[in-house]
């Protein structure tokens, strides 16, 4: 019983991390039809910001990670993606790979490719007992942080003018602009929000793994991207759900598969993904009315 609850909490916490990552990708895809693989580098750079700020008070480190991720998101938008705004999605996709590789190699050039240990918030590694079940504090924290961010993002999109404009732009960008919605502002806001989400994921991952390395973000993003696809590209609810399912499934498979097969758990996850796409090619929650982007 205890093991079951522990596994479920683990699955929910890992699922939450992938849901946050997938949301960051989904936000950008919504307004720009860009699949931003460079989202991974936002996560990586935020982690290196933590590393650079070691020794300072924790709130300063968290704030620094967020500033770096948001600034990097805005810089990549301005320098790489804005000039291509009217290009087709394939061009955008390829340029996002280019940005991703460029940032990764830049990081390797500056700090080297070896992974570095970073003992961030070790207190979260403690076990606590909840109703007779011992759980890791970090898992609870991950679930809480994700829930707070999800609620905050939903509130922003539903209850603010800019949020409404973002939802309108995601559905029909040209019409939104005809009504006076500023393309630059909406897209910059989407990138800034994706930076905040990336920073949160980054901090949680660093606490969990205790290491920082230049490829850490890309690995997360590839899995989360698969999540956005099975969730339904263009739908934020779909992205969150898809990311969550892929993350949770890999943990559950790890726990449920016979030991011999555990090394193949990724293969099982992707078979499940292929099956979902076979029966629901538009994803679990397809986006309504994907219109031409301007």
């Amino acid at each position: 019983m205890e093991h079951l609850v522990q596994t479920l909490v683990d699955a929910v916490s890992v699922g939450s991390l992938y849901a946050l990552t997938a949301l960051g990708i989904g936000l950008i895809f919504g307004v720009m039809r860009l699949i931003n693989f460079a989202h991974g580098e936002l996560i990586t750079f935020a982690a290196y910001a933590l590393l650079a700020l070691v020794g300072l008070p924790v709130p300063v480190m968290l704030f620094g990670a967020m500033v770096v991720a948001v600034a990097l998101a805005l810089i990549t938008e301005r320098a790489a993606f804005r000039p291509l705004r009217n290009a087709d999605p394939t061009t955008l996709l390829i340029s996002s790979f280019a940005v991703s590789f460029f940032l990764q190699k830049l990081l390797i050039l500056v700090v080297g490719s070896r992974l570095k240990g970073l003992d961030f918030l070790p207190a979260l590694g403690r076990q606590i007992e909840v109703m007779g079940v011992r759980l890791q504090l970090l898992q609870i924290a991950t679930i809480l942080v994700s829930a707070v961010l999800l609620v905050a993002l939903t509130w922003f999109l539903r209850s603010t003018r800019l949020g409404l404009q973002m939802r309108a732009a995601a559905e029909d960008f040209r019409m939104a602009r005809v009504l006076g919605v500023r393309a630059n502002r909406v897209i910059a806001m989407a990138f800034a929000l994706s930076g905040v989400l990336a920073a949160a994921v980054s901090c949680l991952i660093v606490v969990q793994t205790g290491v920082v390395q230049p490829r850490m973000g890309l690995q997360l993003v590839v899995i989360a991207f698969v999540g956005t696809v099975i969730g339904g590209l263009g739908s934020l609810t779909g992205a969150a759900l898809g990311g969550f399912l892929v993350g949770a499934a890999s943990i559950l498979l790890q726990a449920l598969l016979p030991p011999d097969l555990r090394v193949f758990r990724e293969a099982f996850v992707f078979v499940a993904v292929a099956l979902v796409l076979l029966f629901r090619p538009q994803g679990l929650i397809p986006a309504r009315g994907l219109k031409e982007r301007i």
Partner: protein
Amino acid sequence: MNASVPLLDVSGLVVRYGAVTAVRGVDLAIGEGEIVSIVGPNGAGKTSLVSAIAGIVPPAAGRIVFAGKSLAGIVLEDVVAQGIALVPEGRHIFASLTVTENLLLGATVRPDAEGVRADLDRSFDMFPILGARRRQPAGQLSGGEQQQLAIARALLSRPRLLMLDEPSLGLAPTVVDQVYGLLGTVREGGVTILLIEQNAERVFGLADRVHVMSGGEFGLSGTAAEIMADRRFDAAYFGVHMHETASDR
């Protein structure tokens, strides 16, 4: 037309898409409070003309002056703040957003939250069906209701000029009557209207002046009565129209 300076003054407008010239040197002047209609067959360049005025496509040549100010070089999202609102062909309502959210987006450029609230209530008076469905996703509305929503949304920017591109497209005749009735009310509110229609007979009861467009140019121009009386109209308009319709199929 008023003897004073026109509200909208378009001269020598040319719109090109690559090698294709869609609008070939059109002059169009609309006085404050007028309803001017442009009719013509599919592919005549009507939508290209309003798209250029709305800032969606940059003109290749010519001038667009609105309320005494040139619109040259103005970006798409700034046009509505000048006082020009567009109800595009196909309506382009935001299907996943509620009726109220669609309407609020119409007021994007307005800073006066109080005034927007009041205008929102006024839209619900003017378009009762929208009031009844204010919390529903706009995608659940019927075609005629969506057209009303698109018009109400455009009006929420408090435009001086309302441009409608084929508002009767895809609607049942009785629904079209209803929409046209609403346009009469809009005019009484002091809004100048530029109305694009393929369906020429429709506009004759409403428009002060009519331009017949084909091949990217204005052919006949005059009051509705003059156009109807002109026997060239049949040849210029319906001749091309029937020919194009036949070749479309």
